[in-house]
């Protein structure tokens, strides 16, 4: 990079492009005026307004609840899929599963949303489950695309794992279940955590699929944000955005630090 200052300039411009809009949101969340372009003094009144917006808080609570269930289910299913993909590589079924697991990641959300809604209606018609649409259908839909990302993360961790530890445990007479819970699981734990967090954010952030498969009773945070953005500028959104950015930055920094330390430890061991 020292030889190419051009690259450095491009990188700096790139990061300005990525962070400029977010920084402007943060700055204007402390603006006393309702207008984005007029600065009329420092104020935290939009944060106060945010805390009094019941519809938004309720939606946020529901979104967090759904995201936690989705993340846990996705980690369970995604880990199973990853185990199949890494351990039973040779069968043709595994290759088909590899294809099937990645497909939801690139499938446009409108198609996933529409097709799942039609499925849920047909299922209710034929077997009476799931009754109506709401939290449950959102959880089922989100898990379907979130598990794909978990599979990818866990799969790469499993593939790079040293198999000798498992083999030693097996040679010493440990049963497969013991081997899994005592050896494999602790070794892939960081990947499970990363997958859980990613699935959580994916669910928390989804508007399109949730809008298709939710009923009148279940309104998630993105749905509330979407309608208020469509209606026009509301400075409360700036405050909400700032809180999200702060929360995410802290979470990413902490997990980044943990990963970095593990990486160093692994390097030291080798």
């Amino acid at each position, binding site marked *: 990079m020292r030889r190419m200052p051009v*690259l450095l300039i491009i990188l700096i411009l790139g990061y300005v492009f990525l962070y400029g*809009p977010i920084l402007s949101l943060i700055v204007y969340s402390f603006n006393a005026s309702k207008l984005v372009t007029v600065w009329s003094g420092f104020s935290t009144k939009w944060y106060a307004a945010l805390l009094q917006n019941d519809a938004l808080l309720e939606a946020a609570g529901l979104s967090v609840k759904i995201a936690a269930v989705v993340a846990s289910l996705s980690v369970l299913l995604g880990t*199973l899929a990853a185990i199949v993909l890494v351990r039973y590589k040779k069968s043709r079924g595994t290759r088909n599963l590899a294809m099937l697991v990645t*497909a939801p990641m690139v499938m446009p959300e409108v198609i996933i949303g529409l097709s799942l809604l*039609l499925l849920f209606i047909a299922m209710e018609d034929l077997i009476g489950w799931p009754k109506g649409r709401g939290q449950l259908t959102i959880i089922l839909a989100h898990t*379907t695309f979130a598990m794909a990302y978990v599979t990818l993360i866990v799969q790469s961790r499993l593939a790079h794992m040293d198999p000798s530890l498992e083999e030693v445990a*097996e040679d010493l007479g440990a049963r497969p279940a013991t081997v899994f819970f005592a050896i494999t699981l602790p070794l892939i734990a960081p990947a499970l955590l990363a997958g859980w967090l990613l699935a959580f954010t994916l669910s928390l952030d989804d*508007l399109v699929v949730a809008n298709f498969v939710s009923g009148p009773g279940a309104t998630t945070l993105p749905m509330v944000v979407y309608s208020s953005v469509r209606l026009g500028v509301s400075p409360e959104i700036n405050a909400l955005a700032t809180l999200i950015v702060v929360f995410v930055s802290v979470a990413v920094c902490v997990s980044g630090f943990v990963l970095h330390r593990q990486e160093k430890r692994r390097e030291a061991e080798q």
Partner: protein
Amino acid sequence: MIHAFTSKWVKPKHAIIAAPWLWLSVFFVLPFVFVLKISFSEALLAQPPYDTIIRDIDEGLITLKINLGTYLLLFEDSLYLEALLGSLKVATISTLLCLLIGYPMAYGIASAPKAWRLPLLMLIILPFWTSFLIRIYAWIGLLKANGLINTLLLKIGIIDQPLTILYTNTAVYIGIVYNYLPFLILPLYATLVRLDRTLLEAAADLGCRPWRQFTSITLPQSMPGVLAGCMLVFIPVMGEFVIPDLLGGPDTLMLGKLMWMEFFNNKDWPLASALAVILLIVLVVPFMLMRHFEAKAAEELA
């Protein structure tokens, strides 16, 4: 290892294999059957409560005659062809723009000192973890007629009339590139960072200039990453709804947006389903290509 699994642990093994299979079959593959079914139904029949599949099979001949109508409509009305071409155009241009910005960035990160790479990469992913709706909302504030960009340009004196950017295709491109850039940078970085640097050194020793080094060594070696990244942008953008809806204007015509409107505004479920089928057919080829390039990239990394 595998032997131990098969001999001692037959039943749990089957459960492990069956669970993800079953879930994806029921909640990912099966839904497309219903999309296909509804796309062949008549508008009123398709809305709940609608006929069971069995009755439809009984009246198969009659329904088939009526139902091809939805697809015929798609070919008759030029709106749908325009939306398809619009989606293709927007997806192609935004993919190229992402590549133009993302390649130098990925290259820059990959050639940064080793200790810098992880933090720099984290900084690429960080915006992706914040809400995408809020990131689009940020651009509305920047691009509006009285927004930050126009105010700045007016104050500096570069323009004396505010530019109309919001609610045009330009705003859509900005929004898409902003949101999808990480999807291109990450796979590209993965191939660039594993590049065989000795080849570059050899070329340099033989008197090859930096630009030649790039075009004859770096670029060809990074092609799998380039193609995988491009597909990761191109395919989802084809069905994008939120960005054209919030940043685009009435002349921004895309399949995803049209599908959403037919479904929620016009309540025409068969038409929305038929559009989904068309979009799926258009996307199957890029998806297959992507799998091919991904497999190739994985092979080269191994």
